[in-house]
């Protein structure tokens, strides 16, 4: 071998040895202090912001609950968390004026903000609500607080909120969730900085953010409910579910927030001997049929569509067994006002007959039907496409980015729309968003609402429900609304998919049953302070 080649080979070998030594030296070995700290490792996607009033993404809302609280919270009843009832949290009590328009909240004394930002006062509550009502750039939920006329600080621990009219769900609006979170006025007055330096009163405070890698939260010693048992929460940005699963098995992660829970995913979790925490009411997947767009302006075609869809088959294919529940209403169970509805049974022959009666004996073709390539959308639509084809309705799919899908459905490009989501757990906000005439999307006016059915048949009921103070009468109003949907055939719910996280129960415990032991909204753990490291 020539001399220079020998020299090159020796250099390479020496370099390789040096690299190996460095890597070997860096291999993990927890220090005693690290080993003693109780660290909860979560694999989820990276939040887009930590300002709780600013994001609609699931992961951002899930992490917000670790750091923020509201005046009220979902109540724990018989060992379960319910979304139907509220109980005091940052407010210790409240009263409502006889005319039903003025709420007076007494705040708990001594509740501290993180990082020495001082005691929470009525000024912070007023600021938290007003920054949203005044549409501070970036905030998203002001629309949920438009019912508020004025807010008055009576004293540092008393706040009076006057409403424009009686609001039957006001205590739900004050739950620690989205618009209900109370933030530190001093910290949030600079919203750009607040996004990544959030100050709340929750059980954990924000420590640091390593972009695209992780967010570290630490236990808050002065949390009003007592210091959590867990010392630190490490929230890793892990977009791939496959990587999450490997991490759970390896012990890198304790909790997983998967993109989507498939039968395969659930099977893998079961094989590893771990659990899936299922939390209602979750998200409902459903079709809205645009009743103004031919040929669906004919109710016989809408009925045929519903007869053609085998909801049970779709549910069992995508979410076999316990992974979801067959939907029973256009308003999910767990929402105030829910009643079971009847829908046309799966009957392809009947569908064909109805299509023939409506003047489509050979069916019809829907060209350029846009569907998101993300989440459940392509899977559900592919199954529905096959079922519709059997009765002669041919749907030519265009699979697009999720954002494009959202844009196109608001341009009314799809004659029927597959959609999913979770809302505050009352029929009023739910039905208002999807069936009130003001929410009909219209590219001409720029209205990007979500009434994809173009339904105008329940505005009167929604108005009546908003002023009704009798709980039973309200329930009757929403029951009537669901009956109208049943009659007009504009909504076909498929399945109610619970919020699902995978948990290594040998490492982390929760006092609530994994099987619907909690009802929650976008976060699956209403009480992260009750999570404990057990090993």
């Amino acid at each position, binding site marked *: *071998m*020539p001399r*220079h080649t020998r020299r090159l080979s020796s250099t*390479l070998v020496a370099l390789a040895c040096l690299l190996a030594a*460095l*890597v*070997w*030296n*860096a*291999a*993990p070995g927890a220090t005693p202090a690290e080993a003693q700290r109780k660290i909860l490792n979560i694999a989820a996607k990276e939040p*887009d*912001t930590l300002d709780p009033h600013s*994001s*609609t*993404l699931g992961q951002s809302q899930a992490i917000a609950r670790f750091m923020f609280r509201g005046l009220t919270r979902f109540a724990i009843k018989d060992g379960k968390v319910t979304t139907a009832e509220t109980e005091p949290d940052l407010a210790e009590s409240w009263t409502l004026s006889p005319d039903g328009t003025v709420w007076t909240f007494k705040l708990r004394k001594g509740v501290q903000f993180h990082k020495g930002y001082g005691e929470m006062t009525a000024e912070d509550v007023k600021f938290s609500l007003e920054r949203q009502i005044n549409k501070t*750039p*970036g905030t*998203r939920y*002001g*629309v949920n607080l438009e019912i508020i006329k004025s807010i008055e600080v009576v004293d540092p621990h008393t706040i009076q909120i006057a409403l424009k009219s009686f609001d039957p769900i006001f205590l739900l609006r004050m739950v620690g969730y989205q618009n209900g979170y109370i933030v530190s006025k001093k910290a949030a007055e600079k919203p*750009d900085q607040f*996004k*990544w330096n959030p100050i709340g009163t929750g059980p954990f405070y924000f420590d640091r953010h*390593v*972009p*695209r*890698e992780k967010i570290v939260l630490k236990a808050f010693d002065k949390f009003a409910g007592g210091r959590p048992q867990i010392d630190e929460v490490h929230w*890793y*940005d*892990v*977009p*791939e579910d*496959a*990587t999450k699963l*490997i*991490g759970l*098995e*390896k012990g*890198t992660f304790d909790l997983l927030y998967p993109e989507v829970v498939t039968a395969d995913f659930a099977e893998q979790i079961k094989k590893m001997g771990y659990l899936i925490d299922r939390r209602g009411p979750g998200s409902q997947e459903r079709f809205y049929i645009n009743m103004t767009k031919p040929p669906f302006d004919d109710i016989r075609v809408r009925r045929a569509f519903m007869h053609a869809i085998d909801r049970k088959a779709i549910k069992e294919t995508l979410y076999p067994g316990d992974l979801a529940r067959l939907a029973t209403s256009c308003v999910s169970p767990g929402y105030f006002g829910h009643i079971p509805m009847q829908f046309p049974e799966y009957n392809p022959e009947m569908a064909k007959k109805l299509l023939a009666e409506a003047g489509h004996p050979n069916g019809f073709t829907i060209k350029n039907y846009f569907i998101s390539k993300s989440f459940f959308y392509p899977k559900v639509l592919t199954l529905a496409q096959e079922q519709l084809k059997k009765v002669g309705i041919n749907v030519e799919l265009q699979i*697009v*980015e*999720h*954002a*494009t899908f*959202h*844009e*196109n459905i*608001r341009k009314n490009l799809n004659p029927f729309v597959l959609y*999913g*989501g979770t*809302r505050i757990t009352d029929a009023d906000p739910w039905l208002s*968003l999807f069936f009130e005439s003001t*929410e009909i*999307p219209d590219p001409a006016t*720029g*209205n*990007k*609402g*979500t009434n994809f059915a173009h339904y105008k048949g329940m505005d009167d009921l929604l108005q009546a429900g908003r002023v009704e103070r009798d709980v039973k009468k309200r329930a009757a109003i929403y029951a009537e609304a669901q009956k109208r949907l049943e009659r007009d055939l504009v909504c076909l719910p498929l399945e109610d998919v619970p919020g699902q996280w995978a948990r290594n129960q040998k490492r982390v415990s929760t006092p609530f049953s994994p099987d619907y032991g909690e009802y929650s909204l976008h976060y699956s753990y209403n009480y992260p302070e009750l999570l404990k490291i057990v090993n």
Partner: protein
Amino acid sequence: MIQYIVRRLLVAIPMLLGAMSIVFFAMRVLPSDPCVAMMGGDATAAALADCSKNLGLDRPLAVQYVDYLWRSVRFDFGISFRQGYPVSEYIGRMFPHTFVLVMASAVVAALVGIPIGIISALKRRNPLIDYPLRIFALLGLSMPVFWLGILLLIVFSLRFDLFPLIGGGDLDGVISMIRSGEMFTYPRDFLKAVGDVLYHLTLPALALGFTLAATVSRLSRSAMLEVVSQDYIRTARAKGNIERIVIYKHALRNMMVPLLTIVGVFIAIALTGTVLTETVFTRPGLGKMLVDAIGARDYPLAQGAVTVFTMIIIVVNLVVDMLYAVVDPRITYR
């Protein structure tokens, strides 16, 4: 030479401008809206209108375009729509992660691909050597990096627990120690931090490097085949040099010229490959950031990332052209 560099840099300006303009208009031609992407299905019409106003998207397109170009001249790519970070700062934090990944995989690709290409070319008449090496190259070409990545994770991270599952290591720490000079005052800490980065880098670099090695080996093979058929190689043999000298001294150096040609393309392929590699190995970096930015219609972030990518490719190609003169004395620039 300097005149040549200046001329090339001047030519680079319209190229950069073209790329920036394409990404600016392409993002806006896409049928989507950053506000809908950010706010999802919960958004009301009024909220979406407010959002557009806050992000400055209600301004005329021409105004947005001029504003974008003017800011870019000052390396100010604006604020990320989604996360609210200044884009320049964000790219600055992501770039080192992608840079070390591309460099490490280039090393892997070169160390694996070039010898295989050379051996395959020289032993092309020996099917026992040539065929397995060609199969290896085919395997590398047909194995997607995300599949190989998951495989490596399952074997070396999950089963044998030799390497970490996620993360990029404390690269920020390494950089700050270099900047502050602490690498000299605390050499042990520095070496530990470097080791941590390498520890996190090993599997991603192997995954990306191996898939790139296949391309490199095929190109090396054809480059070597071309070189060994040249007259000067026959002359070298005729002078009585032993085969090893002929290959190491005469063929290898000349093979570098066609290989250098592909370095520019190679960097582009590697940058593309970082997208999947960074996703599978959950590493921070520019590639994954760009894809996320496009999906979320985060215009400033996507524009900033594409501008930086374009600049990297322009600079790499310029450097490659300079290197021609180094490896081949016949080439001079005027």
